[in-house]
Structures are given as C-alpha cells and as structure tokens.
C-alpha cells in the first residue's frame, strides 16, 4: 500500500465497472474477429475445420486448455463456497470479488522455493506429480461434448463428431485411465521416503483399487441396458428415448458417484491426505509447483469424473425440448455444449457442498463400505438386471419402469438385511469398548 502505483492498480481491479466492461467487451471483440475471419471459413477446400482428421485435434487442444483454466476457476469457487459455508467472505482481496485470486495463487506457486529432501527417490519424486496431472488431463478424450455437428461449408448430410477420439472401447478406456491414476499417488508416497507420505500413499492405493470394483459393477449394469461401449451412442440412446439412464438405473448411479468421489480422493474419502492424522498425506514433502500439480490433478479429475457421469447417467448434452440428435446445426452445438457445461457445474457444486458438509470416514469404515456394502449391492443388482434383460428389452417403451422397480426392490432388500445384521457398515468397530456418552 506504500506504493501509489500499486494502490492505483488495485483500485482499478477492485472496481466492478471495470469487470463489467471486460465481460462485455471481450465477447464483442471475439465476435468482430470471427466476423472478419468469415471469408476464410467459406472455402471448404482450405477449411481446416471440415477435415475429419484435424477437427478432433482442434477439439483436443481447446478442451485441454479450457479444462486447465477451469481448474483455476474451480479452486476459487471452492474457496468462496467454503467461505460461505463457514460464514466468512472467502478470498476478496485480489481483483473485484477475489476474481484474480487463481492468478495470484499460480504466480505464488511458481515463485515458491522448490525443496527436495535428501533421502527421496529423486526420479520417482519428480515423476509422480507429472503422472497425476497427465492422467487426469487425458481422461476426457472420449466425452461427446456436443454430439455431431454439421457446418455450412460441408456437403449436405455430412457431420463431424465433437469428440477427441471415438473409441469403440470407450468405457474400458475410462476404467484403464482410472487405474493408471493410482500410480501417481502411490509413487509420491513411496518416493518421498516419509512415514506420513508412505501411509497416505498406501491408504490411497487400497482405497482407489477397492472402489474400482463398484465402479466396474455399476458400469456392467448400465451396459446390460445400452449394449454398447461407445459413449456417444450411449448419449444418443438417452437423447432419442428421452429417458436418462439415471431413471433406469438409480442404484448403479449411486455406486458410480461414490466411486468417483473415492477415485478423486474428495472429502469423505480423502483419507490419504487426512490433515489431522498424516499432516499432508502423500504430498507432505512436496512444495512449489509440484504440489500445485497434485492440486490441479485433483480438480481436473473432478471435472472429468462429472463429465463421464453425465454422459453415462444424465444424458450428456440432452435436455428435454432443447436439444435433439437430429438437430446438428452449429448453433445447436453451442446449446448442447452449454447444457453439458451447466450439468458439469451442478455436479462440481455438489462435490464441493459434500466436501464442506460431511466429515471424513475412518479407514475401516471406508473399506467396509466398499467391500461389504457397495460390492454386494452391485453383484445382486447385476444378477437381477441380467435376468431382467433376458425377459424384456429394457430400451423399449415403458420397460425401463421394470428396471426402476428392480432397483427399488434391491435397495429395500439390502437395507432390510443391513438393518438386521449385527455389524453396521459405517458404525463402531466390533471390539471397541462401549462408551455411554449420554447425559445421566
């Protein structure tokens, strides 16, 4: 504050009118540039956008950059939400309403000292954050962002898919990428040669591999309805029938949601970085940008996880009365993309609200929840869906109601069994002394 120039800059950045002007002027400038460049698009031969090889690559680069940017916005949103939850204001110093906070954080991370302790395994120590970030950045490759799109300069009836790679093993790709994600955290814990890190890493390994089983079982139940591994076909089926798979299969959705929370190491499942027990968990020894890479990786994982969940269970870009498979105009593409991003925003809001409201599990509760609750539910539901899909075609007409009924019945049976069994899933351990805490 002693420097008048700093004071001047800060007063400009604090002014909401400046921000309003930026928000209005930037889209206008972008529109003018696009309008000036319009003649370039008109020539189909020279147009890079109509080339089936180049278009996915453009989508890949654009999506990579926007996910990296949106992680920064997510971190600001999370801190703001944490502030509101705890009845304080959250970051409000840098820029108007704290909007420049992510930039300030990024700068700070870059200029912090990078400490590498003596006895770490140096190559693995440097490799681990790279693996975490890379894996969470390539997970979104199969997400059909806005369905098929037809541009004016293309031949009639010709469309390109707004997807990085249209893999015929899409769902297996999700599972494969999720499995590699374990390596980053485990290697970080092992290479740090620190007891806190090691326990964090080994807890993370057990947790992440365990929660892959409910995820796999939930996906199997879904596959018995849709019969394809391609994500764009799954979204198209939901858009055509108008019945999202969350209505057909609500229980697998819950299994999948829980697994995504566990795989992303988000709050009720963040035992690998439990501050009260393990200091920083697997990233205790990390500083500077290496720590930031773990952070970015977690948020990118959250965005990718919600995008996959939306494509599988919430109809992707589909919204009743707003988007359809047949409408492939470029403006429809923008609407579809908007719907998708709105759904992702809702999911990320949900992730954050859960983080700031629900306390952390104990490790034995975590393991019992997975192996003794989620996996049996998944197995029973898989058998039930298998038999049901032998009887009727679940994609036909109102047959999805039968699947919904089966879900409800399975849920009731499992809850009744859990209520009757002696050991509860998330309760106290069996051999713990019984302490009466009620006032006498």
């Amino acid at each position, binding site marked *: 504050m002693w420097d008048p120039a700093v004071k001047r800059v800060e007063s400009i950045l604090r002014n909401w009118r400046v921000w309003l002007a930026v928000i209005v002027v930037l889209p206008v400038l972008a529109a003018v540039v696009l309008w000036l460049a319009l003649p370039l698009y008109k020539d189909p031969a020279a147009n890079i956008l109509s080339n089936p*090889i180049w278009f996915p690559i453009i989508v*890949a*680069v654009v999506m*990579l950059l926007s996910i*990296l940017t949106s992680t920064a916005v997510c971190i600001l949103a999370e801190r703001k939400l944490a502030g509101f939850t705890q009845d304080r204001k959250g970051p409000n110093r840098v820029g108007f309403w704290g909007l420049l906070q992510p930039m300030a954080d990024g700068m700070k991370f*870059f*200029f912090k*000292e*990078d*400490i*590498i*302790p*003596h*006895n770490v395994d140096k190559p693995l120590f440097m490799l681990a*954050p790279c693996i975490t*970030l*890379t894996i969470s*950045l*390539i997970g979104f*490759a199969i997400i059909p962002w806005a369905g098929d799109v037809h541009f004016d300069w293309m031949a009639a009836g010709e469309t390109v898919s707004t997807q*990085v*790679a249209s*893999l015929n093993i899409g*769902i*297996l790709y999700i599972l494969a990428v999720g499995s590699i994600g374990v390596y980053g955290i485990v290697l970080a814990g092992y290479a*740090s*040669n*620190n*007891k*806190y890190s090691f326990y964090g890493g080994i807890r993370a*390994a*057990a947790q992440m*591999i365990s929660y*892959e*089983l409910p995820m*796999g079982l939930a996906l*199997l139940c879904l*596959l*018995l309805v849709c*019969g*394809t591994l391609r994500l764009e076909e799954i979204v198209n089926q939901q858009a055509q029938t108008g019945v999202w798979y969350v209505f057909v299969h609500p229980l697998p959705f819950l299994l999948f949601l829980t697994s995504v929370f566990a795989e992303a190491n988000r709050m009720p499942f963040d035992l690998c970085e439990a501050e009260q027990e393990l200091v920083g968990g697997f990233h*205790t*020894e990390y500083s500077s*940008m*290496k720590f930031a*890479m773990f952070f970015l990786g977690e948020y990118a994982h959250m965005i990718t996880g919600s995008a996959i969940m939306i494509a599988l269970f919430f109809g992707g870009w589909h919204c009743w009365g707003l988007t359809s498979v047949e409408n492939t105009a470029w403006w429809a593409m923008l609407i579809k993309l908007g719907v998708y991003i709105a759904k992702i925003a809702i999911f990320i809001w949900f992730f954050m609200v859960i983080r700031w409201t629900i306390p952390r599990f104990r*490790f*034995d509760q975590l393991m019992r929840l997975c*192996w*003794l609750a989620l996996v049996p539910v998944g*197995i029973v539901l*898989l*058998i039930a869906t*298998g038999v049901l*899909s*032998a009887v009727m*075609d679940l994609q036909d007409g109102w047959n999805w109601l039968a699947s919904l009924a089966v879900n409800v019945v399975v849920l009731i049976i499992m809850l009744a069994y859990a209520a009757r069994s002696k050991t509860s899933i998330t309760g106290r*351990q*069996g*051999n713990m002394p019984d302490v009466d805490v009620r006032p006498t």
Partner: protein
Amino acid sequence: MGLNTYDFCLAASDLLPLVVLIICATGITLFILVATHVVDFLLKTSRKGDIKQSTYESGMEPVGDTRRRFNVRFYMIAVLFLIFDVEIIFLYPWAVLYPRLSHPKGDEMVNWARGLSDAGYTPGFLLAAIGVFFALLLVGFIYEWRRGVFKWN
C-alpha cells in the same frame, strides 16, 4: 479374417487425436516441471542445509527410514482386487453382446442372433454359462468375507 492395411489405417486415424492429446498433456506437465526448476535456478534464492533438506516428521529428528514393513491387509486387498477386477473385465464382452443377442434389432442383427442360436449359443445358454462363471466369483467372495479379510480391527 486378417487385418488389412485399410482397416488398420482407419483405426489408427481414429486414435490419432488421442495420441496428440496424450502428447500435449505430457508436454504441459513436463513444461511445468522444467519451468519450476528453471525459475528456482534463476532466482538463486535456494539455500540448502542438512536440517532443511531432512525428512519432515513433525519437527522431530526422523527415526530411521520408511522402507519398512507395513500391515499385511493392504497386500490382501491388492490380491483380492486383482482377482475381482479381472473377473469383472471378463464380464464386459458378455454384457455388451447379451442385450443385442436376446433382443436383436434390424435384419443383420436378427440373422446374426439366429445363427448363434442355431449353433447352440442361445440367450438362455449364455445366461447360464455366465451364471456359473459368476457363481465361482461369488463363492470366493463369500469365503473371503467369512475368513474376515474385510475386517479392519
């Protein structure tokens, strides 16, 4: 039915954007890693020392190394995961083909399903076969449950 060159190129062109994406993502992370060290080197503010570079153990002097024994339960979980995950992956082809086989749509699929049924692979047979496979998994799961592998106390 061999894989001809045209099919191979077609599949490769599908995967090309994925390869580009992986290269871009790796490039970004490596750039961040190198940039950190370059900035650290250029600013030259880093002072090293035995205390500063030692392992963090809540302010105490670190006791021994971390390359030591850990609880065997983590190992058990890893072994169980290997078995169950592989079995679940084996169920995927069945889960994809089964709805198409039992309720085929379109002439081509109907012919394909009829051909399989004539060869003896009826939907009922496939359900029974996968049931036997799944029952083996279930027996193992219940055995582990009874042995108390999932008890963490």
